């Protein structure tokens, strides 16, 4: 044996009441290596990170740093051992300046015991230079972009002499430019001899950065291979435990008559006027950059935002949606972008979440009194049809995985049988197995004659499931692409306005 690896985990296991989170897991990280850790949600990645961060201690197995066994019993111990974890939610104070954040917890004092502000600022400069600079130490952290905040957090880790840096889905909230900057920073840190554990669902990133790739499934180690020896399909197969020969599902027939027809719809400000037709049994993709007005358009159609211009017809009948309840009564359903902030009642049961719509509550109550039998039947139908994995219909929604939570949101709308369903980023934050199931559900709905509009920033998904693609730019529909012409390039050209002349 030559030099021992920077970090080695051997036979590590961890159980929580009722759940075996990790079983006999092996993981090695060398200095100067980017090691990607992949797996579906619930595969055990978070548990592993939390062990490294000192949040959880393993039930069995050993963790070695430089070949010496260590026990990481608390977060401070992790810092002392040179382990830093950059979580998806950043661990900084948004109301303080960059310099104050970098000094947090170890502020230098003057001889009088007061804060040594000039030294805090001086040291901040030095720390920021090590990660590329370009950030003003006096800026209030909350005013920086998420990407910049992340760089600050990395600077803090580097300043604490971290040798093992864990990045948990670092690009989830970054723009393309910010992500590029992060990638070069990652490469720099690798060059400087740090070991990086890189967790991401995004294949391109993993292929761009990782030296080796380890896949977990259901709390088990599935395999570790050098990047060059793995095809993306192999990784997916390892993650889901089977080959997903066709991730996207499209088994429906030709669309029927027009169900929703919008003419010149707009909010009188930045959105519209938009003309739009959705046919029964059709899945229409709505692409575009973030901020192009896709969610706003969906909310205008649904009645969640005030329509100032244009006309709307559903099923041939002119309608005006002044509120979401109007939209629902006129046969429209809307699955918003953020399921936790805009859709779910996390402390309520699956059953109550499914029945809670203006119309759903009408249907399960008589004179305002809820009928449990009807509620139970309704929920059971959706749980079966959508294959929601739960212990019972009375389980709290907060306890479900992201994919199952999203199915509950879908179930809420399916239960009231809308004619038009507007889905805003329906697979965001959902693991690949659940994505596939959601595509099946969308396809099934289309086969049953629902008109579906899907907003997605995931281009392969948008192209994979749509019958045609609309591209929005600056609040208007810039292009309509039939399935044959819808390529990633074409969508991006119209989304960014490069193809403006043709739009």
């Amino acid at each position, binding site marked *: 044996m030559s030099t021992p690896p920077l970090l080695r985990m051997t036979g590590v296991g961890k159980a929580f009441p009722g759940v075996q989170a990790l079983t006999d897991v092996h993981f090695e990280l060398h200095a100067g290596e980017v090691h990607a850790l992949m797996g579906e949600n619930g595969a055990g990645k978070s548990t592993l990170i939390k062990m490294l961060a000192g949040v959880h201690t393993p039930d069995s197995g050993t963790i070695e740093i430089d070949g010496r066994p260590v026990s990481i019993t608390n977060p401070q111990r992790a810092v002392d051992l040179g382990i830093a974890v950059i979580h998806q939610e950043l661990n900084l104070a948004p109301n303080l300046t960059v310099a104050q954040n970098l000094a947090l917890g170890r502020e230098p004092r003057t001889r009088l015991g007061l804060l040594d502000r000039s030294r805090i600022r001086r040291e901040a400069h030095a720390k920021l230079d090590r990660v590329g600079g370009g950030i003003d130490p006096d800026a209030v952290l909350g005013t920086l972009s998420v990407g910049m905040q992340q760089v600050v957090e990395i600077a803090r880790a580097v300043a604490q002499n971290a040798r093992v840096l864990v990045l948990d889905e670092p690009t989830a909230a970054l723009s393309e430019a910010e992500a590029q900057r992060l990638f070069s920073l990652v490469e720099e840190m690798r060059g400087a001899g740090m070991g990086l554990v890189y967790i991401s669902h995004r294949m391109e990133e993993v292929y761009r950065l990782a030296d080796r790739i380890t896949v977990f499934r259901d709390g088990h180690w599935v395999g570790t291979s050098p990047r060059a020896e793995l095809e993306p399909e192999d990784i997916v197969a390892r993650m889901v435990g089977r080959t997903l020969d066709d991730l996207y599902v499209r088994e429906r027939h030709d669309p029927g008559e027009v169900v929703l027809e919008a003419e010149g719809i707009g909010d009188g400000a930045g959105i519209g006027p938009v003309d739009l037709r959705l046919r029964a049994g059709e899945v229409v993709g709505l692409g575009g950059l973030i901020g192009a007005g896709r969610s706003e358009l969906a909310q205008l159609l649904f009645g969640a935002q005030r329509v100032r211009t244009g006309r709307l017809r559903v099923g041939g009948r002119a309608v005006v949606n002044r509120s979401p309840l109007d939209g629902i009564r006129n046969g429209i359903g809307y699955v918003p972008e953020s399921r936790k902030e805009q*859709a779910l009642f996390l402390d309520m049961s699956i059953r109550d979440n499914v*029945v809670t719509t203006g119309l759903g509550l*009408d249907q399960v109550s008589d004179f305002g*009194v809820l009928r449990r039998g009807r509620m139970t039947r309704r929920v059971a139908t959706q749980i079966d049809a959508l294959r929601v994995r739960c212990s019972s219909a009375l*389980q709290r929604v907060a306890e479900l995985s992201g994919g199952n939570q999203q199915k509950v949101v879908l179930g809420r709308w399916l239960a009231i049988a809308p004619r038009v369903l507007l889905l805003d980023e329906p697979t965001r934050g959902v693991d690949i197995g659940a994505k596939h199931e959601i595509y099946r559900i969308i396809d099934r709905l289309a086969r049953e004659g629902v008109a579906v509009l899907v907003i997605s920033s995931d281009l392969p998904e948008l192209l994979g499931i749509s019958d045609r693609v609309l591209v929005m730019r600056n609040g208007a529909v810039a292009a309509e692409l039939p399935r044959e012409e819808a390529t990633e390039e074409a969508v991006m050209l119209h989304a960014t306005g490069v193809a403006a002349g043709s739009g």
Partner: protein
Amino acid sequence: MTETSRAGKPAPTTEAAGIAPPRAGRPRFARLWDRYGILGVLVLMIVLMAVLAPNFLTFTNVFNIARAASINAILAAGMTLVILTRGIDLSVGSNLAVCGIVSVLLWTAGLPSVLCVAGGIAVGALFGLLNGALIAYLALPAFIVTLGGLTYLRGTAYLLTDGQPLLADDLGFRLMGSGFIAGVPVPVVVMLGLYLVLWFVLRHTRFGTEVYAIGGNPEAARLAGIKVKWTLVRVYVIAGACAGLAGVIFSARVMSGQPTAGETYELDAIAAVVLGGTSLMGGIGTVQRTLIGAMIMGVLSNGLLLMNVPYFYQLIIKGGVIVLAVAIDSLKNWKRA
């Protein structure tokens, strides 16, 4: 070498949150505490008082406690709904005074008892409607709107009585305060009836589901087509009606309209709700637990009184118990996090 020594212990209760469903994975004791902990505190307190205070556990005294606590409990019932929607109603104490006075004024004006009682409750509901409309439709903060209510309703109470108690020795509905039904004091019967109704409303009606939904996630409720504003208005109307009911009982009990009635009662009501474990963040809580919270406060007051604890100390102990109870309650969340 392994690290089993520490983590191999059974039931690592505190660490489940990371991956396992927090509640499903929690050991039985924690779940029992979640559900019945506050009831245990009440029982413990009763046992303690029974040992310490003479005559505590007598038939008469038990009813005394319940009757004394009933007004706070009635205010707290409405307050529970308000807090469930992430709101607060600071005006209920002053509203109580106005409604009590109105019911006495109606009596002196010659109206039959039933209309006096109904009138008092209706006035309370009306001020609740005003609160609710300002909060829901003008999107004003509940704290400010009802803080204003606390002040202008107190002023109204003084204005209606010219600052003097409004005596009514022949008050027709005095049984609302001092009567008995089958040996149980009327205020206690009314209180229990109210809680039964609100329990049913929260648990078995669509309105109840809407209240929890709005408290849990107002934006999600709106996007699900719930009439958020209208539901909020109804919640404040209920809180106002509860204040009206409490005011009528108060007046019946003292057979007069008191302009100073109900001062700081809003704080006791909030304390009872919080003692019962209802989250100030909204969406979590039940009225039955609020009732237990109100009873804990009642038992404490009564016990301290029987033990001849000086009033100043009573206040200090009561305040301490409230903070302590909430601290114990939040401890379980803290361990989980």
